[in-house]
């Protein structure tokens, strides 16, 4: 039995539809991220699970029980807030003890539990400090400890890292996954950061405009996205306009705007269909034979260079080269670009145009 199940859940605020007919099952012990751009309805979704909001329609089941009408405090969920929301008038230890106190644990149990979780986030030495004296990362760790100390098996994380510095974020996300996996918790983590989502989760649920676009493991979402929006949102990708020349069991041949023909994965297309090819920059490389392109810009990315080139077909192609090979490329140079057939995915051209289909806002 799934721990959490949403059945046909919708939520409207006046005329605005924040969630539209959502169906979702979360298994016991799963770490799931709900990913999507601002305003896609991801926060509304977990707020409905927590009971902070009630759905306009549909059912929210936790452990098989319908939760509609059950107040927040009786749902037995842990919730970590985006703005951290540590109680400013209580110190770190008192914050962590809040759950055990209101759950009426004995003095001794309370002490044990609070210390145990503060220790888990390595902040035992900060227990007498007030939130305003802690750094952002420490605050969020105390907030996590506070949530864990209340003892619930289901953890809802609402953009838990977005208020923090980029570098702190990277360290904390590994930490988050480690701790929750060790404790065997079920986690629902909301974020707009695709990198964070890929790193922490067992499964990503990608949302857009109140609907679930697609849901799968990070690897499948990255390597074989079913939707064009997913391909662009999770990791960067090059999108090329084309027309199907032929599509068989082994490969597709697609004609670009300048008449050049490229290979891509096979698919159920007929010759003449308008399509979009998606190929990730790390899969594009300079070859002897390929699309004739002119280098427009080169950015240093640390261990590699991201080169942006304009093909004769007017498509913009980004590709990555190892830093050591950086000398071979200069802005203005012409290169010939290609890719292995398997790494180029083909999608039917969306009726509203590519830009609309992958729009981020």
């Amino acid at each position, binding site marked *: 039995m799934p721990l959490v199940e949403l059945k046909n859940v919708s939520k409207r605020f006046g005329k605005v539809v924040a969630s539209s007919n959502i169906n979702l099952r979360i298994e016991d012990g799963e770490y799931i991220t709900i990913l999507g751009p601002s305003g896609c309805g991801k926060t509304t979704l977990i707020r409905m699970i*927590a009971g*902070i909001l009630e759905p306009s329609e549909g059912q929210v089941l936790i452990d098989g029980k319908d939760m509609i009408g059950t107040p927040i405090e009786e749902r037995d969920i842990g919730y970590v807030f985006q703005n951290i929301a540590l109680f400013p008038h209580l110190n770190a230890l008192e914050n962590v003890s809040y759950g055990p106190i209101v759950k009426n644990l004995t003095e001794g149990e309370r002490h044990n539990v609070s210390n145990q979780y503060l220790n888990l986030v390595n902040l035992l030495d900060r227990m007498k400090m007030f939130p305003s004296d802690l750094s952002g990362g420490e605050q969020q760790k105390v907030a996590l400890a506070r949530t864990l100390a209340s003892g619930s098996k289901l953890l809802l994380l609402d953009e838990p890292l977005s208020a923090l510095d980029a570098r702190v974020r990277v360290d904390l996300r590994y930490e988050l996954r480690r701790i929750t996996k060790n404790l065997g918790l079920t986690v629902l983590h909301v974020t707009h950061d695709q990198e964070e989502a890929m790193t922490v989760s067992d499964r990503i649920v990608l949302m857009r405009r109140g609907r679930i676009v697609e849901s799968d493991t990070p690897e499948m979402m990255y390597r074989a996205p079913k939707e064009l929006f997913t391909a662009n949102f999770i990791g960067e990708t090059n999108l090329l306009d084309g027309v199907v020349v032929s599509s068989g069991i082994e490969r597709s041949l697609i004609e670009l705007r300048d008449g050049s023909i490229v290979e891509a994965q096979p698919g159920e297309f007929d010759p003449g269909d308008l399509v979009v090819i998606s190929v990730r920059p790390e899969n594009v490389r300079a070859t002897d034979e390929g699309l004739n392109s002119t280098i427009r810009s080169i950015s240093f990315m640390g261990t590699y260079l991201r080169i942006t080139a304009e093909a004769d077909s007017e498509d913009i192609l980004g590709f990555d080269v190892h830093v050591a090979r950086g000398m071979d490329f200069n802005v203005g140079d012409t290169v010939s670009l290609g890719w292995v057939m398997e790494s180029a995915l083909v999608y039917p051209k969306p009726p509203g145009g590519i830009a609309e289909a992958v729009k981020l806002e």
Partner: protein
Amino acid sequence: MGPGNKLVELISGKRFRKGWTALNIAFFLLFVIIPTVYILSYAITDWSEIQEHVLSDPATMDLIIGSIIVAFEIATIVTIIDFVAGLPLAWMMARKDFRGKQFLDTLIDMPLAVPTAALGFSAAIFWAVTPNPPPFSLATISSPMILIILLHVVFSYPYMVRSLTAILGGIDETYETAGRTLGASRLTAVRTITLPLFRAGLVTGAILCFARSLSETGGTIIALATLYGRRMVEGDFHTGPSLIGFWKDASVSDPTLIPALSFVSILLIILALVLLLVLKIVIMRVRLPLRKVWPSPEKLLSRGLFPKIKDTSAIIFLIVIVLIPSFFIFTYVLTANPVQADWSPFIDALLTSFLVATIVTLIDLVMGIPMALYIVKNKTGRLSQMLDVLVNVPLIVPTAALGFSLGLFWSNFDPNASFPLLLIILAHVAFTYPLVVRNVVGAVEGIDPAFEETARTLGAKPIQSFRRVLFPMIKGSILAGAIMAFTRSLGETGATLAVVANANTAPVYIVELVNEQSYYLAAMACIILIIISYVFMLLLRRFTREEVV
């Protein structure tokens, strides 16, 4: 470069800016603070007189001490009632969404539109056993103390609800939700998390109500006069402010009352300041039982019928205790027999009131806005912090004492009161100026200084960034402050009487009518005043709502 540009250059100069600030502070000290507390100097200069006529006269002393104790008792009870009855309503306004919320919002503010003189009359004829009670009146209260408490609740309640709502709205609801996700019932979360964060706001609300009750004079006098059905006399029930009003009136014919009058004023001012300080400290120090929880009873109270009962009784309280007494006066239009009368004195008085209110408001705006900006922008400066505190003083000083003090101060310059209008204006400036400053300070504090800073880096001089960026953003609050000052000036009785005994303003005229028991005329005059104030009130609401932040 055009002339406009030259002007901008001129007033952007550092020297001009310094001079302008100094002028503003000087105005504040000279026209607001010093006149307000001028009376305190009497304790030194005329101590012998006070000793002779007051301290050594047990009857007078008894009267003074009794009246002051009563005033504090009333203020305390009123504040407690306001808080207990106001919190549920403030909660609804700040945290809940329901149909008719806007309507309820307007209802809460309505008593503010009624000048206190009219309010005193209206509440008195509704509650009190009067010699000649109008139809529908409850006519059950014969104790003057209870009547005054009921009256003070009416006009201080909106202040309490307003400040509690504002503070609750400012406390991030996430804290409470966080508490609930940790397993606390709604009541437990509120008590252990929201309430401690709320304490500073509670002080503000309590002080506002306490000061309002302690300082109100006009309405109190009128209510008592209505209850007794005659002019007040020496042996009647008196609160501190009403005693001042009464003696001030009588001192015109009996100058020996002046020392007693001074003494009671001084005492009230000092006690008000001290008590408010104490109140502030006590509330900040008091230990609420935060660490303790009673999960089951609190859970019980958080669910089911209880919250509904609480909300319903809050609304019933608002309607029965606050709204009906405020507007009971309107029944006169329906029930009493019209009386033929000469309206011209009232119209004269009304015009005077308008003239005074307009001039007062203009002075407040011109001198108050720069002061407010100075206070906010130099928040860390010692001087500005001091000014911030001082600005509140006229709000907590009883208006009758304030008026008396102002009268004494200005009579140094105009001993024969040959410019009564000027004196009234100066007096009204003293107690309306803080309203404008407070409103503008509140608004400017809420706006990220980065807006103006961005404008500066885009090339705007300080005056340009104020006019083009900040001003449009706080326009609503400035207007709100202006209209509050205007209606307050329009409705003020006690201070006016204390400065100029025979002042010719509309509220004073109404007091006269009540004293003469011309109730129908008094009612009609009140209604006219209420309607005018209400129109302003509506304007206020419209402008504040248009504010974009």
